[in-house]
């Protein structure tokens, strides 16, 4: 039968707000997260961590620990397979230090024992001889020629000779004649910015339960954004084959990019192998802050030239990022995204990654973009202020659109930036009056979004219900969206479909839940799998009717004879075809596997009003509106949820959150008391406006939305606070002491 591949624009189920399938489990406490399972004979493990920010490990003597009653095994780096691949080696060395400890909290040994208390006591019996080395935690200090070297020989061929070995990579993007561009400007503003490292702050600490048996097979339960990636990494580190290791993703208590890699999972597997018993590891909050993956810290210079009527003539940014003690490519994405919202004839961004004695960076929503766009949008706002121009009008005048050569190279197709800017301009928030001491700020923001490797299997039960098996942990409500897209394509009610998430043995490879890819890529695969099942059901109906398969169409959840046979037989519903499936050839299923491309970029604009208390330096967020292009919002409540959640993370990042290192190189605020994330009483309602400019690369027009919302808040808040106090701030977070300092400078 002919399949209809024209993009769908009228929907019955997509765009509605049905209840999510995991809702009851989560509101009753029945849902099982990483730390919620146990196994018979289970041991508990704890990890020994470096108290030094940088030291050589001269020797480790684990004998006293091993001799303690109740201790069943101790592991160190020697218990893992050495990796040839550089990036695998870095992940492994981060999980368990080899010759050097590189940051305060770096793991170097682990103990499995019959009780948690015995494991903790055993840690104290491990004798480590360290040789402390000079350390460096500041990105600019680490770039200097005389800086302590964190790792030697890690600089790529892109780094010019003569730089500190801490500089591991260099990138440059852009086009056009900068000098000529700046010459045409009526005003050029040049500013430098710094941002502190922040943490994703998921409420659930990392937790896993590993169980390896004597035949070398293992089961691993863990909270993760990507069970297949966990399998790949752990199998390499333990010298296992993929089929020997079955990884099951628990429900996840937040990830935001921080649970896309491994920290404790290989350690639990190694201990399970050594002991022949299940081993559970749960990180403490202190360990999560010290030894998982915060963002880069950054130091950025931006220079932008503008004509007096608001046209940007040239733009340049230099980004220095540090992703901690291991090489990190995030600056590439920062450098590419910095000016993405603008249509520029002359633009250049330069990026450097620098090693510091800090934990290894992991992604946090749109990695690299928040920092770069914070700096760029702050300078654009300053230019608007100085030239007396409306900041939204200036964005509109310079906005990237279809046909714009982006600052990172490719030409844009249909994008939603202008629609979001116009929606912001038309919104009552933009013209609401402000009292004295209050300020309004805005920022545009952007993220690339990804596709990636995806498998979906769709099975039709004989009672007419449908089971969908997909492989991506649900971090934002994706199971509901996937069921909706299947319901739409099959033409059956949403509540006839149940979507579950497979373990690595039950379905082919799926890339990690990241890159805002799931609703897009898994959704696309679901639609294709549904079409596959539909084709098979039409074929069954054709055989039952004794007509040609080409003459059957699928309408509203049923097969119908078409063409010369139209009207000869009543339609056969999915349930009716399924009921006789065993007689007509066997169980019916559709499936689809691919490496998805064509994810559409997502633009957003945020508006915020603030009031600053000049006595305490505290900032109160009065009003916040998020505008974002979703392409097509499959489940509007979950799209709104992404917009609101990302915005609030950005508010925390802008106003309070930061990693604070002492001169001793140790993290001073490794807990929620002093790493202050937003609480309910800090915030107003977060209003959302969803725009829908369909993505040509998806049958329903879907764009990823999860990451973009963390990008605009940083500059939106900085611009609002700067306008409220009458002084430009150029460092994040804008915590009360920093605001008071800026106020006192006048």
């Amino acid at each position, binding site marked *: 039968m002919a399949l209809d591949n024209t993009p769908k624009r009228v929907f019955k189920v997509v765009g509605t707000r049905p209840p999510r399938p995991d809702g009851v489990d989560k509101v009753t406490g029945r849902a099982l997260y990483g730390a919620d399972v146990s196994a018979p004979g289970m041991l508990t493990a704890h990890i020994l961590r470096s108290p030094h920010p940088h030291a050589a490990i001269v020797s480790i003597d684990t004998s006293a620990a091993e001799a303690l009653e109740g201790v069943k095994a101790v592991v160190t780096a020697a218990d893992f397979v050495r990796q040839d691949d550089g990036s695998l080696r870095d992940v492994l060395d981060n999980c368990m230090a080899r010759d050097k400890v590189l940051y305060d909290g770096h793991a170097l040994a682990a103990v499995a024992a019959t009780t948690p208390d015995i494991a903790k006591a055993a840690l104290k019996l491990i004798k480590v001889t360290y040789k402390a080395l000079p350390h460096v935690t500041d990105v600019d200090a680490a770039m200097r020629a005389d800086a302590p070297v964190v790792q030697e020989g890690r600089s790529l061929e892109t780094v010019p000779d003569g730089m500190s070995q801490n500089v591991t990579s260099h990138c440059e*993007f852009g086009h056009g004649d900068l000098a000529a561009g700046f010459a045409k400007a009526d005003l050029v503003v040049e500013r430098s910015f710094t941002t502190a490292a922040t943490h994703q702050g998921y409420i659930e600490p990392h937790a896993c339960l590993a169980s390896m048996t004597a035949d070398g097979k293992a089961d691993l339960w863990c909270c993760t954004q990507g069970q297949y990636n966990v399998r790949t990494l752990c199998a390499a580190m333990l010298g296992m084959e993929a089929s020997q290791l079955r990884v099951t993703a628990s429900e996840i208590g937040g990830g935001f990019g921080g649970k896309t890699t491994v920290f404790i999972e290989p350690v639990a597997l190694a201990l399970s192998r050594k002991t022949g018993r299940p081993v559970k590891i749960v990180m403490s909050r202190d360990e999560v802050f010290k030894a998982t993956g915060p963002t880069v810290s950054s130091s950025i210079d931006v220079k932008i030239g503008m004509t007096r009527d608001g046209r940007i003539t040239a733009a340049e940014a230099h980004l220095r990022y540090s992703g901690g003690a291991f090489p990190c490519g995030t600056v590439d994405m920062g450098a590419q995204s910095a000016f993405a919202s603008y249509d520029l004839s002359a633009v250049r961004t330069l990026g450097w990654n620098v090693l510091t004695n800090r934990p290894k960076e992991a992604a946090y929503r749109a990695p690299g973009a928040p920092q770069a766009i914070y700096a760029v949008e702050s300078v654009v706002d300053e230019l608007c202020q100085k030239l007396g121009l409306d900041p939204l009008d200036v964005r509109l005048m310079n906005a990237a659109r279809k046909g714009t050569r982006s600052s990172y190279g490719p030409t844009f197709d249909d994008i939603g930036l202008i629609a979001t800017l116009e929606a912001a301009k038309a919104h009552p928030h933009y013209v609401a009056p402000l009292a004295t001491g209050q300020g309004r700020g805005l920022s545009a923001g952007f993220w690339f979004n990804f596709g990636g490797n995806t498998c979906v299997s769709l099975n039709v039960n004989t009672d007419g219900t449908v089971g969908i098996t997909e492989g991506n942990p649900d971090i934002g409500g994706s199971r509901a969206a996937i069921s909706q897209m299947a319901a739409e394509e099959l033409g059956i009610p949403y509540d006839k479909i149940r979507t579950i998430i497979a373990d690595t043995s039950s379905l082919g490879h799926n890339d990690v839940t990241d890159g805002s890819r799931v609703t897009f890529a898994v959704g696309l695969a679901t639609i294709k799998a549904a079409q596959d099942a539909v084709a098979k059901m039409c074929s069954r109906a054709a055989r039952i009717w004794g007509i040609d398969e080409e003459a059957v169409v699928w309408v509203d959840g049923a097969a119908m004879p078409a063409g010369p046979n139209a009207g000869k037989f009543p339609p056969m519903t999915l349930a009716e075809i399924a009921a006789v499936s065993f007689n007509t050839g066997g169980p019916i299923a559709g499936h689809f596997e691919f490496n998805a491309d064509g994810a559409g970029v997502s633009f957003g604009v945020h508006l915020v009003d603030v009031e600053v208390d000049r006595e305490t330096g505290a900032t109160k967020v009065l009003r916040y509106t998020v505008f974002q292009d979703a392409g097509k919002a499959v489940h509007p409540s979950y799209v709104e949820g992404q917009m609101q959640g990302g915005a609030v993370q950005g508010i925390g990042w802008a106003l309070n959150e930061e990693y604070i290192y002492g001169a001793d190189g140790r993290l001073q605020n490794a807990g929620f008391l002093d790493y202050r994330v937003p609480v309910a009483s800090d915030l107003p309602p977060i209003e959302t406006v969803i725009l829908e400019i369909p993505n040509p690369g998806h049958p329903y027009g879907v764009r990823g939305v999860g990451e973009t919302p963390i990008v605009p808040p940083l500059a939106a808040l900085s611009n609002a606070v700067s306008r409220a106090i009458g002084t430009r701030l150029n460092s994040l977070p804008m915590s009360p002491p920093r605001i008071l300092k800026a106020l006192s400078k006048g």
Partner: protein
Amino acid sequence: MVAVTIWGSLRRFTDGQGQVEVEASNFKELLDRLSQDYPGLKPQIERGVSLALDGRIYREAWFTEIGPQSEVVLMPYMAGG
């Protein structure tokens, strides 16, 4: 022949050219030819690159067809969170 845009920090391996021409009809052929014609690009290509073809980003698809009129932009391999 296909015109490929090379990003700024790689141009020192293409004699300063921002755009180079290679004979290729798909992504894999393009990468193989670039490595051959400009050996300085090889380490980056081995580490991983994405390809933007007429505005759409492809991360790994070897058999993505490239026409002579296509806009082809080399980009670093992207990751999200």
